[in-house]
């Protein structure tokens, strides 16, 4: 196992290097430079000032040189400083937003799983029933509705007309003066709309996936055997069928590890949530190369780790592909 792990981890190094080279090259292919945004066609900015800015950021050096400088810093775990006017460390900019995005994504992921799996299972066991048809329509509505539109409607209803829930942001303005319990309820109230909106859009994929896997599994011979042995319907479905149907879900979960750190721009913008999506979007629009690279490297590492994790988990839950079994 250890040997396998270290082999997989070693394989990741050239892969990562390749990813950084390609991404570094690709973002430089986009026209424009960070200095364009900073000077914003301001007539007070002379060409000399612009050149000084370029030199300050090292943009006057050849591209391979810039890449090597960046890589050398990265090897010392230094992601560099942002090219935007705040000139902050990339790692700080990411660190202050990461918990927010991960928190929201984990919450909505949990909500999705806890709703989508039962929906999937029930629509498979009651295929073509009213419930199946209704949930199918329901989850696809969720999938098709534009996030911003749904969000605005809910904000108008619950925020403006009824006044039950806050409209945007993560905390009230008087948050600091609240009691501990008050803080918790305040947080929770702010999370209701965003988590609901995020989860509603994500139900379709998961529930349909569960449904089709489940349909496949309950037609298998061993399910028939289990039924023939006289096991109760519930036991057959939830003990034997579900476990097998959920196997591929592990892959999906593994693959969604990187998406946990990537927020959605539209979603974050409409709810005024300072998350990763906005950071990435703005850094791309302003050609803030160090931040773009920082986020992409983080995403690449997490994708690779997520794959590895999924492979390992697979082995754990599915004896057929357990690694030890292959020894000898």
């Amino acid at each position: 196992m250890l040997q396998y792990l270290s082999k997989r981890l070693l394989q990741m190094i050239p892969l990562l290097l390749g990813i950084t080279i390609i991404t570094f090259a690709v973002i430089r292919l986009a026209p424009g430079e960070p200095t364009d945004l900073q000077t914003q066609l301001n007539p007070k900015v002379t060409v000399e000032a612009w050149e000084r800015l370029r030199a300050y950021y090292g943009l006057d050096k050849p591209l391979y040189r810039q890449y090597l400088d960046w890589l050398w810093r990265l090897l010392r775990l230094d992601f560099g400083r942002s090219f935007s006017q705040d000139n902050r460390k990339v790692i700080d900019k990411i660190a202050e937003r990461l918990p927010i995005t991960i928190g929201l994504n984990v919450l909505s992921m949990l909500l999705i799983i806890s709703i989508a799996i039962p929906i999937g299972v029930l629509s498979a066991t009651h295929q073509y029933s009213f419930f199946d048809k209704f949930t199918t329509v329901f989850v696809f509505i969720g999938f098709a509705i534009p996030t911003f539109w749904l969000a605005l409607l809910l904000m108008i209803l619950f925020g403006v007309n009824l006044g039950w829930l806050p409209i945007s942001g993560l905390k009230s303005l008087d948050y600091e003066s609240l009691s501990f319990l008050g803080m918790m309820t305040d947080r929770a109230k702010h999370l209701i709309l965003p988590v609901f909106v995020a989860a509603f859009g994500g139900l379709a994929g998961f529930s349909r996936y569960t449904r089709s896997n489940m349909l496949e599994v309950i037609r298998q011979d061993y399910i028939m055997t289990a039924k023939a042995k006289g096991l109760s319907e519930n036991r057959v479905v939830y003990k034997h069928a579900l476990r097998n149907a959920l196997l591929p879900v592990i892959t999906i979960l593994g693959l969604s590890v990187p998406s946990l750190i990537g927020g959605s721009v539209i979603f974050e913008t409409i709810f005024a949530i300072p998350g990763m999506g906005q950071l990435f979007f703005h850094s791309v629009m302003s050609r803030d190369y160090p931040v773009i690279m920082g986020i992409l490297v983080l995403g690449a590492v997490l994708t690779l780790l997520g794959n590895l994790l999924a492979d390992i988990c697979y082995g754990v839950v599915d004896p057929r592909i357990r690694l030890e079994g292959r020894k000898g």
Partner: protein
Amino acid sequence: MDKIPKMKITILSAFLTLLLLMLGSCDSCQERKETVKEPALEEPGEPAYGDTIVVGSIGDASNLLPPLASDSASFDIIGLVYNGIVKYDKDLKIVGDLAESWDISPDGLEIIFHLRKGVKWHDGVEFTAEDVMFGYRKIIDPNTPTAYASSFEEVKEAEILDKYTFKVTYKEPFAPGLASWGNLVVLPQHLLEGEDITKSPLTRSPVGTGPYRFVEWKTGEKIVLEYNPDYFEGRPHIDRYLYRFIPEQATMFLELKAERIDEMGLTPLQYRRQTNSPDFLQKFNKYRYLSFGYTYLGYNLLEPKFQDIRVRHAISSAINKQDIVDGVLLGLGRVATGPFKPDTIWYNPEVKRYPYDPEKARALLEEAGWVDTDGDGILDKEGEPFSFTIITNQGNEQRKKSAEIIQRNLKEIGIEVKIHIIEWAAFINDFIDKKNFEAVILGWSLDPDPDQYDIWHSRKTKFKEFNFISYKNPEVDDLLVKARHTMDPEERRKYYFRFQEILAEEQPYTFLYVAESLPAIHSRFKGIEPAPAGIGYNFIEWYVPKHLQKYTK
């Protein structure tokens, strides 16, 4: 990424200068005659201390150290935390801020500033001429990545005469010089000395001399300021200033309606159609006044077809500018006739105008040789159809709609227009800087100082410079240089009047419109008095009567 009209006037004279409007409306200043205040139902009550104002902003601030900032959100905050040496008063006259007075030598080369005594930085250290010198040195230091060094590079020598006296000597008389000593240049030396200012903690937690002290900044969420009890002009009435970032206009508007923010800039649609319920008008006051900026259609004068002045006249006559004001701004603006804000002393109302007249446009084009010979509805000349592309930047609905109206107007006289909308960085880099365009819709935001050398002088047509339409006129060059080096405002004004006449005659741009700023402010705030400088100039005098205060600790 709508940019919000800036509502606080930040004293930033050196600065508001002609920044390109990324998004239609903008900026801090307003006009007395144009101001319409829709009355709130409540009585003003007695001035009192206390309460919090929550201001909505579409963008987060980026850097709160003045020389390093370049966005309007950062300057909204900087304007309350820092002072300049001079500032603009409500009538846009230059008055002392940290300077009690100043003397300008008769030849216009020297300015001696007499600074206020006993002013304290927020950490208690006294402000002196050393701080001015320090700020000046930092801003001209080549290692400082600032965008604003150019007007300070006209300074030949700066010296400290004593603790409260600071003298600058210019290379030649420089009219925009005095105004440039705004709040970019006064920095707390005792906190920044010997440090790399780009990495200073002050970029995120500023220490100034201004009416408000910095409390906290939660990135992407809010900035909190608290009143400075020792402010030299007196204690501000409103205790706390809370700046909330809400990147989406629609969300911000809902927050306003739910009274969770107190102030935001409205869009023309919101102003006209969505804020007229009695309920809203009771909760909020709406203001409208001309912004300091204009939108134009600029022609690349390196293009042969635009070099013919008759063609430019024809297009200017064929565009229904009033239609654009009515359609795009819902009437909340006015037709621009030149590069100065109407009703400032620099604006020349007597210039040639181009009222909508498609017949005249057709005649002019025919005279210039553009006739529809093949009957396809598009004019042609020597076998080439009259077709061109207007480019503009992504994210600005008003410019996009203006382009569509122009497209339609010009189609009527047989000119085919294509519209190309390009994301900002690519727009600047690949199209504007490389002069790779035929016509462009853009806007300039204006500074109270009228100097427009960088936009119109023929020496400013190189790569990355701002006369990207390549306009060349020796008389204009001469006028701009003279006006720049004339200290007498009356004489300066004559030069700019002539300059506007020439621009109106030559139409290197078709000037389209000046939009209005449309802030809505909660009606519990009293003492807001619109003036040519906007509404933010007397922010420290705004107050909420005791019985109306909402946020009490």
